[in-house]
């Protein structure tokens, strides 16, 4: 599947395109098929997202898993600071990244 990610223009937060809006959680990301480029341009013009790009991801039971480790780190947060990730209560969340 193809999903879109970028950073929130104002806050810098990592965000994922859900089909309607942007979410901070990669599990909400939607498959954009071959519509990625069009959505990118529209959303960039709408000034909510900064530097958006399309990535390949794998659909899993927990939702989309980005193909590249870099985007998995982005999806979770720094593996060395579990308290600052999106899953602060789950000390093993970093395993998903690797």
């Amino acid at each position, binding site marked *: 599947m193809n999903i879109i990610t970028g*950073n929130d*223009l104002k*806050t*810098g937060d990592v965000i994922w395109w859900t089909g309607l809006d942007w979410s901070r959680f990669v599990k909400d990301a939607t498959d954009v098929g071959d519509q990625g480029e069009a959505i990118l341009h529209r959303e960039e013009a709408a*000034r909510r997202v900064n530097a958006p790009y399309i990535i390949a991801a794998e659909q899993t039971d927990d939702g989309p898993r980005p*193909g590249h480790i*870099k985007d998995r780190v982005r999806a979770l947060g720094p*593996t*060395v600071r579990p308290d600052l990730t999106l899953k602060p209560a789950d000390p093993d969340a970093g395993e998903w990244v*690797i």
Partner: protein
Amino acid sequence: MYQYDQYDQQMVDTRVEEFRDQVKRRLAGDLTEDQFKPLRLMNGLYLQLHAYMLRVAIPYGTLNGKQMRMLGHIARKYDRDYGHFTTRQNIQYNWIKLEEAPDLLADLASVEMHAIQTSGNCIRNISSDQFAGATADEIADPRPWAELLRQWSSFHPEFSYLPRKFKFAVIASDTDRAAMRLHDIGIQLVHNEAGELGAKFFVGGGMGRTPMIAPEIRGFVPADELISYAEACLRVYNRYGRRDNKYKARIKILVHELGKEEYTRQVEEEFAHMKELGLNPPVEELARITEFFADPAYNKQASDGLDLSDPDFALWVDQNTAAHKQSGYAIATISLKPRGGIPGDASSAQIDLMADLAEQYSFDELRVTHSQNIVLPYVKKSDLYALWQKLDEAGLAPANLDLITDSIACPGLDYCSLANARSIPLAQKISERFADLGRQRELGELKLKISGCINACGHHHAGHIGILGVDRKGTENHQLLLGGSGAEDASLAKITGPGFTEDGVIDAIETVTDLYLEQREDGERFIDTYRRVGMEKFKEAIYG
């Protein structure tokens, strides 16, 4: 310490308001990201893995308590309660909001700080010896010269669009604590035979994908011509440096391709021309700057006596303090490398505490070191015990300066968008594996430096032991390097062979340190044994 005059302050304040307006226009859609990006980068604001990242300049690594406290305030108010001190004596914040960046910069400006020229192809923060002005082994305080270079290079119109970024370091002793020869221009203050002060110039050093040690191009430039000589070095680079290829654009490539002799000849020609034009800064300006760096009001009667009956304190004194030029005083290094910690990270509470301690015990001054630690440069020996107790309570008293757990690590894949592999977890695991202080001290001075990619922000080329993160078909892999040094015995490390997994590289380091213990002769540090014994033996031990 230097204090802004009205011009310095005005320049910085004007820039903050300019940026405020630019951010407003970006958020309103009047500027696209393509238009805005160069503007935010000019103000140190990057976009990294998780958010905007701000790099704040700490000129030659020197700051006072009020400035340090402001860094803590920024961590608390605009970031997630911590900052990361870097190998270029700066601090980085990882979670900055664009909409808040102008207020943040205004707060910084209120204590004479900014993030200007911390990005882009300009002259970056001037780095220096963290012991400047305090150490027993210097011939002069290098900071007035670093400050002169700062003023000359700030907003210098001719050097705002160089072929590539440009880094200076200035030192004034034979011991190099600033990795001087791994800078684009390294300057060492020296005396000539007549006893006059001047500068030795080293040009064309650097790390990155093509590491080089800067060759000496002139043994003595009279002190009052130092700026003109630097300007001549830059002019030749600006004219002939390669703008067609980012990877060949640094001055080191130019010096290497032209050859040191030809590059020097051109610099000398330019220098002669500049001397005719009389472009040296006025002598009064240097005198004005130098006054700011006068010695603090030492107590000349302060005693050299120290009660070392507390063994933990004694270890810290032995490992983390250095000889001072003033009797009765010591230079104390606060290690930001606790067991299992993140090298260079400090919480706002720790930053505040260090600010308090500087005010109380170090004439209101602190330094940031290129190995990501903090220095209190002027501590009375009779205050060391009280200082150590307060540091210890806050987890700031690891007695590991220059030992294997005092590693340098770049942000790596946990924060950096250019990374191939994570650096910090490696530093943490090595710190755990070698946690026993007795074992660390047995190994002695051992500089471990870790980068997450070829850009070498973590100085892996200059590590006695270096680690470089590479991407191996989408998984993290780590190459091991041996034999580098960023000190006065500068050398570039060599890759041992095929890369390793995270645990694999830590095992390999243990193999290497074991071999050192087995092979070393009296008084040899790790690097000395490596140089004597050679790579082959280490390779054999690692790869069998």
